[in-house]
C-alpha cells in the first residue's frame, strides 16, 4: 500500500463551496465484484469483475421499470425535480472534490436522463429536447463511479424543497447495476459473509467466543468486577445486536465493554447471539430488499430461538435505520403488525419496552431511573463533542419525542462527562455531515474520496478543537468510528480522539464490587 497520491484539502475555518472542477473525481472508482461474490447474494456476474452480462441494456431498463413500479417514491423522485439547485452544495463529496457530478442533482440526473428516454413520452420521441439519454456503456460507467461516490446520507434531501431523496436514487442505481453484473466488491463481499457466517467480518462462533472471553478478562483486570459478555444464552431478557466491528476493532470494542458494564450495573439479564452477530445490514446500501430481509431474518430467528423479551441495538448507524424504520415489516420486530408472522414474535416481546430499542435509549432510561452511578471526573481528561450519524439523524428516531435521536445520545454523554461542546449548528442534528465513509464506501480503494468527503466534518471539528480544546469525537456508528480513525490523521488530528458514546459511559460508570 503506497502512500496516498492525492492532495489532502486544507482546513480554512469555514466550509467553503468549491469551484466546479469537471471530472475531479472521475478517477476514483471502487473495485467491482467478481462473479463468485455476486452469485452468493443472488446477482449475476460477468467473466471479469465489472463485466456486464449479455443483454445488459434491456435488463437494466427492465429493472428500472420494475423498481419504478415497486417504489412510488422513486417514480416521484424521477418526475419531481425542477433543478432548482438547492442541493448542489449540500453534499460532502461535492464540497470535498468539486466534481459537479457529485452535486446531488447531477448524481440523480445520471438516472433521470435515462428514465426520461425510456419512460416519458417526450423523452421517447424528442430525446434531445428534454435532455433524455440512452443507456450506453459510458453512462453505466458513470453510474458505477458516482453511485459509489454517494454515501446515501440524505443530507441533500433535507434541503430539497420537494424532499427528493438522493439515497433512494443511489440505491436504485446500485440495484440496477447489480442486476447487470456490475456490483461493488466491498459491499457485496461483506453481504455474502453475513449470509454465510452471520456477520460482516466473517467472525465464526468459536472466534467470537474466544474474543468475548478475552474482553471479560480485560474488564476483570481493569475493574476487579466480573463483567460478562454472554453469548447464546437462552431465556435472557435482552438480545443485544451490535455491529461485528464491536467485537474486533479499536475503538469499537471500548463501547462493547461499555454496554456490558451497563447491563451488569443494572442487573439486566442479556445475551449476544452468534447467529445474529451483526447489526449492520449492507442490503440497504445496495437497495436490495431481498438481501436486506435475508440479513434481518437472522435477528428474528435468534430472538425466537433464544426466547428474549427485548431487542436492543448497539452503536451502528445504518443498522438503527433498518431496525427502527424497516424491521417491523421486514421481520416483525416493532409494533403494528397484525399478521401471524408479526404476532409470533410480538407475543414473545415485552410490550412495555420499545422494540427495537437503541442502546443509548436503554442506557438513558436507566440513568433517569437512577440505576446507574457515575464518577464524571473520570472523564475529565476529555473534552467531548458528538457527531450525529447520518442514518440515525435522518433515517430514524429514538425514544418517544421528536428529535429524540439528537437529544438522547447527548443526554447520555452529559451524564458521564463534565466537558461537552457541540459543533456548529449547521453541521449537526438534522443537518449533520456524513463521516465520509458511509453507505458502502468504507474501503481502501476509495480512500481519496473518504478523506475529501470528510472535509466539512473536519472543518467543524477543527473549530471546536481550536475554540474549546475538544479532544474526543463521540460516535454511535461503527462505520463512523472506522472512517474517522482512518481519516483524522490526514487532517492533523490524533486517531485516539475517536471513540464511542459507550466508551465514555464505560470510563465513568461505577461498578459495585461483589461481596467477598
Amino acid at each position, binding site marked *: 500500500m503506497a502512500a496516498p497520491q492525492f492532495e489532502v484539502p486544507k482546513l480554512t475555518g469555514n466550509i467553503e463551496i468549491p469551484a466546479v472542477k469537471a471530472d475531479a473525481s472521475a478517477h476514483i472508482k471502487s*473495485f467491482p465484484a467478481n462473479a463468485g461474490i455476486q452469485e452468493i447474494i443472488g446477482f449475476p456476474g460477468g467473466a471479469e469483475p465489472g463485466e456486464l452480462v449479455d443483454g445488459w441494456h434491456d435488463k437494466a431498463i427492465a429493472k428500472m421499470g420494475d423498481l419504478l413500479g415497486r417504489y412510488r417514491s422513486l417514480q416521484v423522485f424521477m418526475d419531481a425535480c425542477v433543478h432548482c439547485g438547492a442541493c448542489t452544495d449540500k453534499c460532502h463529496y461535492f464540497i470535498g472534490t468539486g466534481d459537479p457530478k457529485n452535486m446531488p442533482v447531477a448524481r440523480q440526473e445520471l438516472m433521470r436522463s435515462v428514465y426520461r428516454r425510456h419512460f416519458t413520452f417526450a423523452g421517447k420521441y424528442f430525446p434531445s429536447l428534454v435532455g433524455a439519454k440512452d443507456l450506453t456503456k459510458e453512462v453505466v460507467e458513470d453510474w458505477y463511479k458516482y453511485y459509489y461516490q454517494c454515501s446515501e446520507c440524505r443530507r441533500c434531501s433535507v434541503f430539497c424543497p420537494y424532499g427528493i431523496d438522493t439515497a433512494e436514487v443511489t440505491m436504485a442505481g446500485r440495484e440496477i447495476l447489480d442486476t447487470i453484473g456490475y456490483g461493488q*466488491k466491498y459491499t457485496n463481499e461483506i453481504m455474502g459473509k453475513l449470509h454465510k457466517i452471520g*456477520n460482516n467480518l466473517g467472525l465464526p462462533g468459536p*472466534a467470537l467466543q*474466544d474474543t468475548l472471553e478475552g474482553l471479560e478478562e480485560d474488564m476483570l483486570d481493569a475493574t476487579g468486577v466480573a463483567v460478562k459478555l454472554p453469548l447464546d444464552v437462552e431465556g435472557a431478557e435482552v438480545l443485544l445486536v451490535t455491529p461485528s466491528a464491536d467485537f474486533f476493532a479499536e475503538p469499537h470494542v471500548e463501547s462493547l465493554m461499555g454496554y456490558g458494564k451497563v447491563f451488569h450495573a443494572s442487573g439486566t439479564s442479556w445475551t449476544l447471539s452468534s447467529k445474529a452477530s451483526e447489526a449492520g445490514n449492507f442490503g440497504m446500501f445496495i437497495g436490495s430488499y431481498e438481501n436486506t430481509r435475508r440479513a434481518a431474518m437472522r435477528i428474528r430467528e435468534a430472538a425466537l430461538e433464544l426466547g428474549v423479551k427485548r431487542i436492543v441495538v448497539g452503536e451502528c448507524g445504518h443498522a438503527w435505520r433498518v431496525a427502527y424504520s424497516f424491521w417491523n415489516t421486514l421481520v416483525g420486530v416493532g409494533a403494528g403488525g397484525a399478521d401471524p408472522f408479526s404476532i409470533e414474535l410480538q407475543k414473545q416481546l415485552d410490550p412495555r419496552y420499545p422494540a427495537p430499542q437503541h442502546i443509548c435509549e436503554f442506557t438513558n432510561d436507566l440513568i433517569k431511573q437512577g440505576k446507574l452511578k457515575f464518577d464524571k471526573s473520570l472523564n475529565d481528561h476529555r473534552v467531548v463533542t458528538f457527531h450525529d450519524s447520518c442514518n440515525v439523524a435522518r433515517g430514524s428516531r429514538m425514544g418517544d419525542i421528536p428529535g429524540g435521536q439528537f437529544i438522547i445520545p447527548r443526554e447520555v454523554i452529559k451524564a458521564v462527562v463534565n466537558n461537552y461542546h457541540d459543533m456548529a449548528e449547521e453541521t449537526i442534528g438534522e443537518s449533520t455531515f456524513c463521516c465520509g465513509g458511509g453507505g458502502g464506501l468504507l474501503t481502501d480503494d476509495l480512500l481519496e474520496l473518504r478523506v475529501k468527503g470528510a472535509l466539512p466534518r473536519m472543518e467543524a471539528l477543527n473549530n471546536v478543537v481550536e475554540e474549546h480544546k475538544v479532544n474526543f469525537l463521540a460516535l454511535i456508528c461503527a462505520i463512523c468510528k472506522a472512517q474517522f480513525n482512518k481519516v483524522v490523521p490526514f487532517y492533523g488530528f490524533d486517531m485516539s480522539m475517536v471513540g464511542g458514546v459507550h466508551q465514555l459511559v464505560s470510563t465513568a460508570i461505577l461498578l459495585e464490587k461483589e461481596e467477598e
Partner: protein
Amino acid sequence: MGFEINGKTYETDEEGYLVNLAEWDEEAAKYLAIEEKVDMTESHWEVVNFLREYYNDYQIAPAVRVLTKAIGKKLGPEKGNSKYLYELFPYGPAKQACKIAGLPKPTGCI
C-alpha cells in the same frame, strides 16, 4: 494478478492479498513485505506467525486487542499495545500484517 518467485507463482487479488492461503511461504511473505515497504525484523515475524497460528485455529484474523495481548505476553507488556503494532505496520496492523501473513483482508466496518 499475482507474482512469481523462483518459478513458483502466487495468485493475488486486486489489493495484493494472496488468493490461496495454502500458497503462502516465507518467500511470499518477504515479497509482500517489500511491496508494503515493511522491513521484516524478528518482531515482524513474531506478529506474522501469531496471525497464522490464530487463523489456523479460528479461520479469521485475531481482533486487534487479541493480537496486542498475545504480543504483550510474548514480548513483554511494553509491546502489548496498538502503538507498537502501528510502529511495525504503519498502514494498520490488521490489514498490513494480514497481507504479509497471507491471510484474507479483514473487512467490515473496521
